[in-house]
């Protein structure tokens, strides 16, 4: 167990270092996220009375788009020089690689969210009428739900044609319960009209179930030719 976590950490640090050096994905992603927010602002009138009810949905759709673009490049560096083969022939456990990539994606998406949320707050004059602190578990659990399955399906799509479209195609249907919970939970907190408790529990269940499934099956996916 010790080696699993130390290897995960080593891989995560390596990925962060590589991303920091090239900054190719990060810069493009930040700018893309900005554009997504702007388009939403122009499409859905921020001054409308109903905006508080739909902002939950808007925000998470924006996060979903950003997450998919981020997830699509999860394995890009490993594919470039067939580095994945080096990993496959080594005795290192597959799950260390998976966790490192999932955590890396999680951090990446959180950075993007940190950029997009203030913009949404500003443009839509957001103020939570319910308990605002509950937004944190919703955001954390919801983001992990997208990222854990996204990383898994990104690895699956490596062996397919039309790689970039395969990922969202596989990810979206499976993520529907999580998306419902994220959106409904966020809306409940923002409007203060109901409790988000159930949705937080649902997200937690979703995360536990699918993290287990991913850890159980990633080895199979990694070693598929």
């Amino acid at each position, binding site marked *: 167990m010790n080696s699993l976590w130390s290897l995960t950490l*080593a891989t995560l640090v390596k990925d962060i*270092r590589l991303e920091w050096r090239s900054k190719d994905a990060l810069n493009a992603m930040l700018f893309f996220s900005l554009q997504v927010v702007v388009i939403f602002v122009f499409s859905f009138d921020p001054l409308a009375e109903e905006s508080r009810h739909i902002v939950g949905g808007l925000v998470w759709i924006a996060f979903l788009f950003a997450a998919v673009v981020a997830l699509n490049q999860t394995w890009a560096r490993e594919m470039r*020089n067939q580095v994945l083969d*080096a990993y496959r*022939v*080594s*005795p*290192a456990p597959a799950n260390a690689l998976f966790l490192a990539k999932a955590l890396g994606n999680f951090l990446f998406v959180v950075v993007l969210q940190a950029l997009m949320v203030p913009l949404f707050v500003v443009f839509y004059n957001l103020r939570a009428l319910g308990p605002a602190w509950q937004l944190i578990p919703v955001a954390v659990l919801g983001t992990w739900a997208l990222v854990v399955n996204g990383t898994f399906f990104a690895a699956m799509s490596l062996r397919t044609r039309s790689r970039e479209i395969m990922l969202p195609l596989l990810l979206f249907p499976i993520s529907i319960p999580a998306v419902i919970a994220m959106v409904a939970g966020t809306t409940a907190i923002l409007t203060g009209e109901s409790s988000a408790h159930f949705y937080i529990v649902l997200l937690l269940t979703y995360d536990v179930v699918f993290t287990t499934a991913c850890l159980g099956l990633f080895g199979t996916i990694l070693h598929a030719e």
Partner: protein
Amino acid sequence: MTDAEIPRTQPLVVVSGLIKQFGRFAALRGVSAEFDAGRFHAILGDNGAGKTTLLRALAGLSQPTQGTISIFGKSPLAACRDIGYMAHPSLLYDEMSGMENLRYFARLYGISGDARCEEAIRSVALDPELTRGVGQYSQGMRQRMSLARAILHDPTVLLLDEPFSNVDVNSAREMVHLLKDMRDAGKTIFVVTHQAMLLEGVADEFIWMQAGEIVDRTASAQRAPNEPKAAL
């Protein structure tokens, strides 16, 4: 079991009835062979003969449709600590330096500290102090660094797929020299290559493949194309 203890008479790698099917195409059609320890085998043949498929199967990267492979009496994946693999792509991260790359891959094998990494880099006649990214190396340097990665964990069996393609003559000679030393130290080496003459006098055996099968095994790279099949 150290290299010195492996008796030279006992076959180390045993392949039996190996078939690899990709849809309608059979890349390997029933390959059966035994390979002794501590010998340098060159695998030759035309494109599409199945050389790379065989090597990848030995490395555990490709699951055979049928048949077995045994290395040290284990399956390739179980024997991964004793196998070093290298292919034409560098299997390295372009943005990291040689040392940084090797430090990371050393972690995968449970090796900590820089000593082994530096040793591996020096043995391929490269400088551990180089800080530029591997992506900026010449092809020859990159291949040598890739070899360093493959030998980092001191494997007993080396599997190299076209290590000399597009590589300058000096780099190629360095690599052949290093491989010869490693064979003399008791390692078992398999090299897939189109450049048989590079290994003339160095390799112990030349294995000729055609259409998914081993058709001949000779001691020299000189072989008339229509020579009758020798007894295997």
